[in-house]
């Protein structure tokens, strides 16, 4: 008989090992799936994980990993702070949209003036926009006790409607023949978030993601606020006795995650995307939730998880094109990753016992 026995202390070894085990299990189960679809499983797995990093055209794909991974890491870092403290901001996608709108709005307001202050102003506006959007569920929670999960999630759909309205109205390109979508910020030097080193994919968003990782690491390990976050997550009652103000913590965690999501949106719209369009958002805010958990809510883990997630996206597209794998199979593959992670997570808190249960 197999049964689970709760560990007295969560296993550190398993906590570190589960992501790796989950990736391996995903490769095996994914391989079986691809084989069932009539594709060579080894070739498919190789294409997804190896091709972007070391394949013939890796000189192009490696920078793309940065482009794809940077917003994921930036958003996930912000979310992880709240998640650690049991504050669930599920609406990063909406904050990402609003940050892009406010940031791009500031940039477009200056068009066609060229000045070095424009981009910093856009960055500020983007962060503020995301922060303000996250403050809605935060203040509603602290003042009226509403559920931040529901409110932040619902605000994603409000943000999407705003995005549509802006693309069709206020921010519409006057030279766009009536088609929706703003001017292309890539063609507006002062507002363009280009590569810091040409062809590297390292734009300001990637730099901000790295800074956020360091900032979060220091905050969590060396700062009182970080301690409060961890304490609230581990032992809410103890935190209260220790004088942690839940209200301030909610405002802080929601604010930081909103601002970082807003920044991610601004860097995306002014760089890789270029235009505010109706379907500007492609789900980074939701994928970042997976990245945050895949990275064990740890700043360095999130960095690695973001890179891994980006790899499966880019490798997945290559596999589609080169091997004819359907996109649904790739999505199942990505879903397996989270599934296995959660499944193996059990081993962190429980150990498996074989044999009959002891009589208590």
């Amino acid at each position, binding site marked *: 008989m197999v049964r689970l026995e709760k560990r007295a202390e969560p296993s550190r070894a398993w906590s570190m090992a589960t992501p790796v085990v989950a990736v391996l299990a995903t490769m095996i189960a994914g391989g079986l799936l691809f084989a069932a679809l009539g594709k060579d499983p080894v070739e498919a797995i190789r294409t997804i994980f190896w091709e972007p990093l070391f394949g013939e*055209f890796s000189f*192009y*794909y490696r920078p793309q990993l940065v482009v*794809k991974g940077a917003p994921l890491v930036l958003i996930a870092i912000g979310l992880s702070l709240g998640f650690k403290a049991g504050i669930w901001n599920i609406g990063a996608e909406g904050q990402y949209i609003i940050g892009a709108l406010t940031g791009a709005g500031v940039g477009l307001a200056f068009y066609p003036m060229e000045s070095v202050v424009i981009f910093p102003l856009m960055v500020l506006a983007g962060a503020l926009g995301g922060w303000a959007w996250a403050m809605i569920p935060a203040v509603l929670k602290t003042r009226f006790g509403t559920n931040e999960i529901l409110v932040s999630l619902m605000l994603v759909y409000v943000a999407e409607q705003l995005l549509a309205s802006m693309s069709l109205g206020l921010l519409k390109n006057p030279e766009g023949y009536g088609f929706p979508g703003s001017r292309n910020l890539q063609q507006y030097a002062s507002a363009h978030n280009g590569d810091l080193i040409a062809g590297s994919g390292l734009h300001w968003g990637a730099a901000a993601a790295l800074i956020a990782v360091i900032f979060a690491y220091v905050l969590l390990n060396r700062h009182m606020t970080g301690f409060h976050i961890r304490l609230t997550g581990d032992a809410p009652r103890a935190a209260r006795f220790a004088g942690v103000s839940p209200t301030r913590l909610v405002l802080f965690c929601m604010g930081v995650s909103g601002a970082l999501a807003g920044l991610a949106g601004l860097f995306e719209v002014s760089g890789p995307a270029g235009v505010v*369009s109706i379907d500007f958002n492609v789900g980074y805010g939701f994928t970042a939730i997976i990245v945050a958990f895949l990275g064990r809510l740890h700043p360095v883990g999130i960095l690695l998880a973001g890179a891994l997630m980006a790899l499966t996206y880019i490798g997945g*597209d290559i596999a*589609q094109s080169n091997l004819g794998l359907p*996109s*649904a199979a790739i999505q199942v593959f990505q879903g397996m990753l989270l599934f296995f992670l959660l499944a193996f997570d059990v081993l962190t808190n429980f150990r498996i016992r074989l044999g009959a249960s002891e009589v208590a």
Partner: protein
Amino acid sequence: MKITALLASAAMALGLASAAVADDKTKVGFVYVGPVGDGGWTYEHDQGRLAVEEAFGDKVETVYVESVAEGPDSERVMTQMALEGADLIFTTSFGYMDPTINVAKKFPNVKFEHATGYKRADNVSTYSARFYEGRAVQGTIAGHMTKSNVIGYIGSFPIPEVIRGINAAYIHAKKVNPDVEFKIVWAFTWFDPAKEADAAKVLIEQGADVILQHTDSTAPQAAAQAAGNVVTFGQASDMAEYGPFPRVSSIIDNWAPYYIARTKAVMDGTWTSVDTWDGIAPGMVGIGEISDAVPAEVKAEALALKEAIASGEYHPFTGPLKKQDGSDWLAAGAVADDGTLAGMNFFVEGLTGDIPQ
């Protein structure tokens, strides 16, 4: 900065060159916005791709990536196809416009074909279909079929292509049934079965007994079928599985002849950048079988209109026509020019509601 940029593009060009000599097959790439099984827009593009394979056999190799988000993801997918040695790439959604232009700049030897856009370059053509010709035929049938005189219309995005379709359908429905009224719901999606079904249900609740859709899934057909007495039309694809009722006819996008011709042009080295906008006459827009649920005389009238459009004898936007605000647009007998149609951002007189701004 300059030198690294130069090196990067040199590396790109080198990668391309080495890939291109790898085999002498013509490689054709397709970038799709939806899944190939959407039963509508992307499905028909994929039928075009299969027709290219059929036509050229082992002289051609096709690749595709489905469900590609518009924006940086599409740019990456196109670059990847070009790097892997594609000679010709069809990018099949409006939102791929700027990415297509960006990638085309980096790969001057690869030919690009962008559907429904307006930006061209030496190696970028644009192509689109005059779906509004089909909408005129559809509007005629719809105007006759409605008993409640309320026709529901599921709009995707308020862009000129969709607005043209609404106007064309309305003008011709009104022509055969002066009491007809259009209710329009904007779904803000090309493909989202749940949203499309909701939109259809809302329209049916508001009394619509004919539903026209400019979205790509069959969900509105299913919603109409469940309601029992609501007429629909297939969109982009025939959607014949919902015939003979509720689906009474359809507008079919037939990209196969164009895709075959353009692939041939690349093979022969005769490809040039063009702007193609074809309608019923060359077969890019097809009218699906009009089912027996439609009275014979209505069917005959619709087919006569189709013939008149195909022969060039009649233009769906022929004056006298006024804009929604009552101002004059076309004088009696005048026909709309392509420029105005391409950027159409107004409703014609009689339509209610605003175009979302």
